[in-house]
């Protein structure tokens, strides 16, 4: 199964990130033991799988309440599948480990990601994705004062207009599904046959358009509004 986040796409560290550092002895031992030509590599891989399975079970147990219809065996299977997929991902990415964290922390994130994605997808399995705005009618109509109520109405009215007319159909679909209707980005990515990263870029662009629309209408929000006040 392809990973939900294409980590291979990262070429440069952001400003402020530290260069590679030497791994601690325990981490270095892990990396050495997992090299293709290392003696005892099979034993190291077995230990790595145990580590990944522990992390996957940790995630499954944290999210168990979101899937009340599943049985204990289902959770065990999900954890095992996650550990298996994470093992493949870790071995494929071993050369990218830069020693900036413990090796165990580095591999945990692969298992947690695999488990989280599988659990989110299982939770939304067979559910129709809400891609239309459902939230506008839920907005409260009153306000603490007539002025505040009017400002709020103007703000959300402009946002609704920008969503309806200022976004591309794809941007609108992604924004509405993720930001308004709470569809997990991994679930949407699977349904639209794309990646989490690509969808988040779309979401980011849509959000920037909304901010630009509000700025164009002279509506200040966040830090700008606080400075003005």
């Amino acid at each position, binding site marked *: 199964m392809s990973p939900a986040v294409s980590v291979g796409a990262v070429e440069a560290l*952001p400003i402020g990130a530290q260069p590679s550092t030497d791994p601690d002895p325990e981490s270095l031992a892990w990396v050495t033991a997992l090299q293709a030509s290392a003696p005892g590599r099979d034993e190291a891989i077995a230990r790595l799988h145990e580590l990944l399975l522990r992390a996957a079970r940790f995630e499954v147990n944290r999210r168990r309440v979101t899937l009340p219809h599943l049985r204990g065996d289902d959770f065990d299977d999900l954890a095992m599948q996650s550990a298996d997929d994470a093992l493949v991902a870790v071995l494929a990415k071993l050369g990218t480990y830069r020693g900036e964290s413990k090796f165990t922390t580095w591999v*945990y994130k692969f298992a947690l990601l695999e488990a989280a994605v599988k659990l989110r997808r299982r939770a939304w399995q067979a559910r129709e994705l809400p891609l239309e705005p459902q939230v506008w009618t839920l907005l409260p109509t009153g306000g603490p004062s007539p002025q505040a109520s009017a400002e709020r109405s103007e703000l959300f009215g402009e946002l609704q207009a920008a969503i309806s007319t200022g976004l591309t159909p794809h941007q609108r679909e992604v924004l509405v599904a993720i930001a308004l209707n709470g569809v997990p980005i991994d679930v949407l990515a699977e349904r639209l046959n794309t990646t989490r990263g690509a969808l988040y870029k779309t979401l980011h662009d849509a959000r920037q358009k909304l901010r630009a629309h509000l700025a164009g209408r002279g509506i200040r929000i966040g830090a700008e509004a606080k400075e003005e006040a």
Partner: protein
Amino acid sequence: MSRREDELLRALLGPEGPELSCEECFELLDRYVELEVAGSDADRAVPGMLAHLDGCPACHEDHVSLRALVRSDTSG
């Protein structure tokens, strides 16, 4: 502004400042979490991470899980 409206605005508009991509977040998350658990200034060391975690619910969940797991290792 009610809490619900504030949450809706945050979801629609996302973080204000520059933020990492999901790929960059995954790449740097282990280092960020270890700095957090050690009590260091993770946000200064990894600029753009906090904004992304604020804007991306999935990466936010992954961050919470990794931090909890690393903390459980540290305390155990």
